[in-house]
């Protein structure tokens, strides 16, 4: 290599090239470094053959290939970056692009349709007030079909696939409504809780354009879900302010507007906001950074500390876990949270990056959550005979086991990754492959539990 220590013209050119490539955004630090190494190897060989520095540079850059095409290839390979950078927008039909007028109209009409769907039962005399269990069980059916339709339209789903996607919704409508649930039935509540989880998978299939097993679509769907949740919360906050202000203003002129808020503003807004949120996530992918990974970065250390302190306190005081009625639920929620943290960390992580401090922390979080949960399960197992099997307990126990399996294997994969025995991609694949398990379990709860437990 010629004169690589002072800033020769060649070094200057290479530095400029590096800056130019980095600024395009599709390639990140280590990859640019790798390409630069290649460039230097090539230049060295050409210089040896007798070319001058700048001639060698030009030829080496030319051989590297068209940067547009190269960026596109890199972007395709690292599709997680598309989320932030629309580098392949120019000639990729499946890349996220700018929302068009057609799309705006479609979104508006599905949002209005969702808002009206929730008022449909009222037309047949099923008012919201007094029929809360019915509405709770069906709420996902009011909005998710519209969301699926929108995503299906956006992805250009084949009509045949679309028809297949109608089936789960039809089945869900049947299972939510044929069983004679009592007014305070536990299995009814379980159905209301699990139906959205079951149907979210259908939304996912529409999101990935019907090709569930192809490529990185599923991880994109996980990102989409997280971002949608965050957008929804933001919209809900705004909606709350709007509703409160409306009522107060009408109160000021002595008109009671409660009915407007309770029967129209809140239910219709809650439905429409899902569609608007989804549209915003689709359209604004490039505008804001992903929020979900930022939150996981923030909360992973905090939850790790809390769990460790909790364990230490248990050991220190010797207080056993007090097995009250539904103590399992608390630990279920804990595991859901930890799985969420792991999942969203995985979704934002560059699979090729080396293990760092944060990965160690993540393993610590998972292991401490497993220990806490194991203690809880032991405590509950010791007294399971006294409990009897109620639907709530079986559901909670099943969920606990499902999450436990996920986290145990994740911990193992994390440990391998940290000791340099496996790649992070394996962990990511495991999390993605596990996604349908949640929906399958939710389906079991919806379909079997009411019958098995006699609609209790």
């Amino acid at each position: 290599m010629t004169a690589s220590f002072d800033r020769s013209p060649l070094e200057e050119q290479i530095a400029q090239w590096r800056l130019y490539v980095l600024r395009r955004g599709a390639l990140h630090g280590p990859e640019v470094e790798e390409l630069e190494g290649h460039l230097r190897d090539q230049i060295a060989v050409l210089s040896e053959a007798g070319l001058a520095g700048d001639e060698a540079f030009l030829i080496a850059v030319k051989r590297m290939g068209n940067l547009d095409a190269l960026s596109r290839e890199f972007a395709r390979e690292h599709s997680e970056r598309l989320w932030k950078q629309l580098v392949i927008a120019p000639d990729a039909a499946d890349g996220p692009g700018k929302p068009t007028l057609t799309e705006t109209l479609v979104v508006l009409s599905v949002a209005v349709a969702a808002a009206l769907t929730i008022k449909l039962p009222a037309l047949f005399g099923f008012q919201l007030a007094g029929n809360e269990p019915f509405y709770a069980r069906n709420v996902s059916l009011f909005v998710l079909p519209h969301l699926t339709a929108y995503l299906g339209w956006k992805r250009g789903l084949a009509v045949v696939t679309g028809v297949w996607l109608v089936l789960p919704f039809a089945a869900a409508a049947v299972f939510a409504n044929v069983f004679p649930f009592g007014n305070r039935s536990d299995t009814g509540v379980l159905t209301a809780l699990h139906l959205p989880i079951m149907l979210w998978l259908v939304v996912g299939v529409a999101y990935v354009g019907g090709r569930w097993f192809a490529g990185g679509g599923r991880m994109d769907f996980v990102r989409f879900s997280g971002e949608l949740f965050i957008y929804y919360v933001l919209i809900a906050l705004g909606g709350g302010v709007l509703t409160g202000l409306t009522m107060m203003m009408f109160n000021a002129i002595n008109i009671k507007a409660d009915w407007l808020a309770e029967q129209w503003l809140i239910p219709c807004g809650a439905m429409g906001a899902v569609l608007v949120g989804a549209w915003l996530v689709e359209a604004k992918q490039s505008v804001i950074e992903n929020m979900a990974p930022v939150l996981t970065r923030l909360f992973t250390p905090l939850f790790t500390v809390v769990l460790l302190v909790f364990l230490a306190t248990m050991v220190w005081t010797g207080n056993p876990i007090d097995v009250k009625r539904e103590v399992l639920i608390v630990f279920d929620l804990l595991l859901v949270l930890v799985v969420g943290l792991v999942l969203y960390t995985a979704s934002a992580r560059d699979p090729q990056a080396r293990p760092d401090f944060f990965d160690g922390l993540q393993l610590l979080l998972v292991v401490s959550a497993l220990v806490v949960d194991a203690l809880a399960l032991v405590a509950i197992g010791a007294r399971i005979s006294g409990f009897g099997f109620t639907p709530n307990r079986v559901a909670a126990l099943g969920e606990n086991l499902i999450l436990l399996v996920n986290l145990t294997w994740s911990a193992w994969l994390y440990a391998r990754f940290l000791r340099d025995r496996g790649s992070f991609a394996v962990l990511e694949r495991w999390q993605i492959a596990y996604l349908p398990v949640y929906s399958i379990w939710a389906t079991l709860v919806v379909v079997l539990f009411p019958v098995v437990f006699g609609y209790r």
Partner: protein
Amino acid sequence: MELGKDLVAASATPLVLAILAEGESYGYAIIKRVTELSGGHVQWTDGMLYPVLHRLERNGLVAAKWRASESGRKRKYYRITKEGRAQLAFQRQQWQVVASTLRGLWMKACTT
């Protein structure tokens, strides 16, 4: 004679895997080896090799490590994994099927 774009894309995986099966290597050396072996007929756009390598790495067919090279610069070295060898054997069979089918057809064309 230069190969068409599709054929280059399709043959990239088995070529890279087969070269790595000979021993650990890095991007520039792989390209040089391909040019050498093919007598210059297989010409890759240099940069395009890297997305292929990264895909193979993500799928666990090759493993990579950054190490200092003889010139002192850091360089990313790739080696084939066990899954990579299995995949190579599988691809080898497929390419042999294609090659022998074509050969059969063209032999017949010659004799008739």
